[in-house]
């Protein structure tokens, strides 16, 4: 345990990389997931098909496989992203599929009468989505999105397998030298917990902020 504590600075450096991966991955998933969700609810068949295909593809491919393809496959056709960027993009691509479904189910919680009322007062589809439906839908999306956040945070540890110097990777390096796997992973686990709880805390704050005063 002493060894783990004396290398805590190094682990914190890895934790920072994990935080960056998580934030970039989650931000990317929210942006991309929102667009996909809109694609899945608009009354335009090709867009719905694209949205649905994306979700089914990226939700069903293991993230590690995706990272592996991204890192070792793309260079074969001349596209090389850095290891960190590849991991972040893969987290976003995969997270977007889950975010899309969270947002879509949120949209579905808004009663159909709201959309009809919006149309009745002359709003276009985009306007009714932006001004009527999405603001209400976001309320019921907060907790599912927290789930996505935690999912992204925890699966960012897969980046360790493709040589990104994150918390898990540095924990493994520590074990290599000092053979203190249990202690090292306890500390790493605690740091992951901090990150997940942080996400959950932010979710709870958003939920209170978006709550309707009835």
């Amino acid at each position, binding site marked *: 345990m002493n060894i783990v504590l004396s290398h805590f600075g190094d682990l914190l450096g890895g934790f920072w990389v994990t935080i960056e991966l998580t934030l970039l991955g989650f931000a*990317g998933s929210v*942006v*991309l997931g*929102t*667009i*996909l969700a809109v694609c899945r609810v608009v009354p335009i068949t090709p867009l719905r098909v694209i949205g649905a295909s*994306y979700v089914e*593809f*990226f939700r069903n491919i293991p993230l590690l496989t*995706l990272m*592996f*393809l*991204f*890192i*070792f*496959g*793309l*260079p*074969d*056709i001349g*596209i*090389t992203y850095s*290891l960190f960027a590849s991991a972040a*993009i893969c987290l*976003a*691509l995969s997270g*977007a599929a889950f975010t899309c479904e969270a947002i879509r189910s949120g949209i579905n919680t808004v009663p159909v009468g709201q959309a009809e009322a919006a149309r009745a007062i002359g709003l276009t589809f985009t306007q009714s989505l*932006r*001004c009527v439906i*999405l*603001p209400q839908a976001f309320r019921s999306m907060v907790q599912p999105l927290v789930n996505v956040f935690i999912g992204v945070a925890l699966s960012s540890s897969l980046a*360790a*397998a*493709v*040589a990104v*110097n994150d918390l898990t*990777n540095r*924990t*493994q*390096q520590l*074990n*290599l*030298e*000092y*053979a203190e*796997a*249990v202690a090292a*992973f306890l500390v790493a686990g605690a740091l992951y917990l901090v990150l997940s709880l942080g996400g959950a805390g932010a979710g709870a704050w958003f939920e209170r902020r978006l709550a309707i005063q009835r």
Partner: protein
Amino acid sequence: MSQHIARSGLLRRTSILAVASAVSAALVGCGSSAAVTPTAAGPTVSTSDYSAIIAAAPVADTSAITRGSWMESVKTRGYLQVGGSDAAQLFSLKDLETGELKGFDAGLSQMLARYITGKTDVLSLTKLTTVTVDTRETLLQNGTVDAVFATYTITPARAKKVAFAGAYYESGDAILVKKDNTSIKEVADLKGKNVATESNSTAALSLKKYAPQARLQLFQTDAECVAAVQQGRADAYVLDQGILISDASNNPAVKVVGQPFTQEPYGIGLPLNKPEAKAFVNTWLKKIYADGSWNKLWKATIGTVVSGDAPAPPTIGSADGS
């Protein structure tokens, strides 16, 4: 309300760009998947020779298997529970057709199992539990495996947790680079370079010691490390020289440079609370050194890529921690 509109408007502008680039990247990613996987074609070891070497290895006297000992529990069970790998070139690689594990580490574990149980059928001698750097000590401590054969370098820090029999092999880390690379010739040239290595290897440790300014990239497998060098992600790949030579012999795009810059004594990990195990395994090692089984196994595995005769086996107990 206006706040929402402003926010989602911004969201939309940035997100369209992101979607376009992400989706195109994703599509390209799946399209190329056929050409992706780094191949792991290893040197071929003929099954009959290999099995014959194991089958000809010595068997312990019944008197050596004392009552209530580590050896007796293995003998009663009928097979050795081995912690190791099924994807380590030359050392322990699974033959996907027969399901047989082959390699220097695998062969030694099978010989040890034969020594204790007296059986000859290679497939039933051992049961493998795949171990990693993170699990080796714990699995030995809690009795999930009887012994670890996993290119397990003997170090004083590890010797506090597990007992090491051996050393049974001494290896050195060398450097693999792209064929056209002329700037890296020895370990000092790795300064500031991206250097790949296997996350389960001690090469990462030697790099920290001999090239502290190299930027480490820890990948899971040998094949990934070679691909990283070939694709220019890593400038060099550092690992056991034997494995690198085998990689270079399979892949004309890379080459091995310089001589090994470390000495890695590999040991057999055994439970610390069963002191009889270490003495027993060391006795067995001396036997297979003396009767030539060790030499034959080296020839059939590592010797397929490293030219020349088998080296003299390392002295038992010579490594710090064994």
